[in-house]
């Protein structure tokens, strides 16, 4: 994954997407606030976004980061499809990250595809912010 030739922006723009059918946005709202408070522009898609709407939104908003929250367990289906869609629009240098209940083996398989780190319950918002800043600079 190659996020280091992102053109220099004055602001980091993050698409915060809720994939899957579940309605759990507690974590997403907390992260949105934390990212905003760290100076980023957070575009929230709302619940139950399809792969297609997430990809199109990311491209229209020309974001640096796509952070997908999938708590329904469908991450292994959805994340690779989102990654494929982003690459189709030439957005292979966007950082695709996110959160959910992601077992280690799934994490490894996602990394092999070029997808970024996935965060789980217990990871702090500070860690997530540091990760994003680290990957983009």
């Amino acid at each position: 994954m190659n996020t280091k030739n992102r053109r220099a922006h004055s602001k980091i723009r993050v698409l915060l997407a809720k994939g899957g059918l579940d309605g759990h946005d507690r974590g997403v709202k907390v992260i949105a606030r934390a990212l905003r408070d760290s100076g980023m522009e957070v575009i929230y898609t709302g619940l139950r976004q399809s792969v297609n709407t997430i990809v199109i939104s990311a491209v229209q908003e020309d974001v640096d980061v796509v952070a997908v929250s999938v708590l329904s367990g469908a991450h292994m289906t959805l994340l690779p499809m989102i990654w494929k869609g982003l690459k189709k629009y030439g957005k292979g240098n966007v950082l695709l990250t996110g959160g959910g209940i992601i077992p280690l083996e799934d994490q490894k398989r996602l990394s092999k595809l070029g997808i970024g780190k996935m965060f789980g319950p217990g990871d702090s918002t500070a860690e997530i912010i540091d990760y994003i800043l680290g990957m983009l600079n």
Partner: protein
Amino acid sequence: MKKHKKIFYIPKELRNLNYSKDLGNPGEFPFTRGIYPTMYAEKVWTMREFAGFGLAHDTNKRFHFLLKHGQTGLSVAFDLPTLMGYDSDDPKSIGEVGLGGVAIDSLQDMEELFRGIPLAKVSTSMTINAPAAIVFAMYLACAKKQRAKLNVLNGTIQNDILKEYIAQKEWIFPPKPSMRLVVDSVRFATQHVPKWNTISISGYHIREAGSTAVQELAFTLANGFTYVEETLKTGLNIDRFAQRFSFFFNAHQNFFEEIAKYRAARRIWARRLRYRYKARDPKSWRMRFHVQTAGCSLMAQQPENNITRTAYEALSAVLGGAQSLHTNGYDEPLCLPTNESAQIALRTQQILAHELGLTGTADPLGGSYYVEQLTSKMEAEAESYFKQIRKIGGVLPGIEENFFQKEIANASYAFQKEVEEKKRVIVGVNEYVTKEEMWKVPIFKIDAKREREQKSRLRRLKKKRNQAKVKRTLDQLKRKAETKENLMPFILEAVESYATLGEIVNSLKEVFGEYQEPPSAL
């Protein structure tokens, strides 16, 4: 954690309490001390472990396993497509079929789910909300096929749409038509399925979304009042339906606060039902509730610790007088429970019931200076929320204004900050961390071929059934949805013609519209 200014409490805390007015004996108004005189001494709480995954035949096997191992009631979890009213072959269902619950697309699946289980003899709780009326109809149709009489059926359907808009966010239609469906199902059950618990007014999800204990208490009760008021508007007598409303609370970790919460809830509900809604039958004043231990308190790191957390939480529910209890599997943060973790969860309850000497005394904490003070304090704080909600105009306007959602989001953010700043210690997560490889727990995975299997089941069903009959019942349903008639009989007809859940929901969507998520503000 709130810093208590007092470290101990003294008799004067009880000074303003009038025993018969504010506490009463267990089984006596206002039921602060419990709704039955003998509580667990006569009958232990129902051990009701939630189950559901994969396809109907998978869950059917788990049901048989649990019944064999001493579980006394069935509790069904549905997958997300079912909860949202999508069939398994809907493009929105990709990757979600059978995950987190059982996939039910039609009466055929329902029949498979309960194969070999006499519905007349078990008590079934179904955790479903937005399409609850339809799934309820499927259960009734299934019972009819087993030749069971509707009036002996025992069970609960969660059917609490208000908390969906506030917390769980699994909605389909806008609030007004959704309330109509809830009231229709209440009225139908009151007449035809009188033993059925029609709404499980839930605080569990509100708490899981990040609310405080007081918010859980206040928002849940406010929703309860709304259901009562809406049903009263149809002319139904309160004593005919109120007894079939039950509640569903969370058992979180602040031990005594949880116990006080349950006691305050009973007292508030009893008083409102008696004095505001003028219920005459004492059974209408009694709040029965189910408890689930807090999923959000369980951590993925060092998951075995979750067994301990769950045990303590379960203890608070028992000391608080719950009627039934679900204890989480320790692998809850990681995946669906394995047979092993489901068994440990059940054993946790059995140990509580048989080994700790808890069941012989009702409300053992009654009279505690601390617990009584805490109970009254929570009641007062809930009343203050009721005032605010009244000012806004009620729960529905409150939902529209994002009042509840904002309160919850703020509480949730404050909690997270406390954890990150280590003001709140979570063992194994921000303290006592061990550098071990995570996710060592055997993870129970759903086979992806389930989705394919279910889709072919659906295809076969659609070929087998009488398509003309399906269309007729759906058209009839749409026509009736435009009127004010009770929709339950027409939903039942559609269900019995083997119309799928998605087809029925889509027909209703044409009339009712779809709810749009309100824009967020932080």
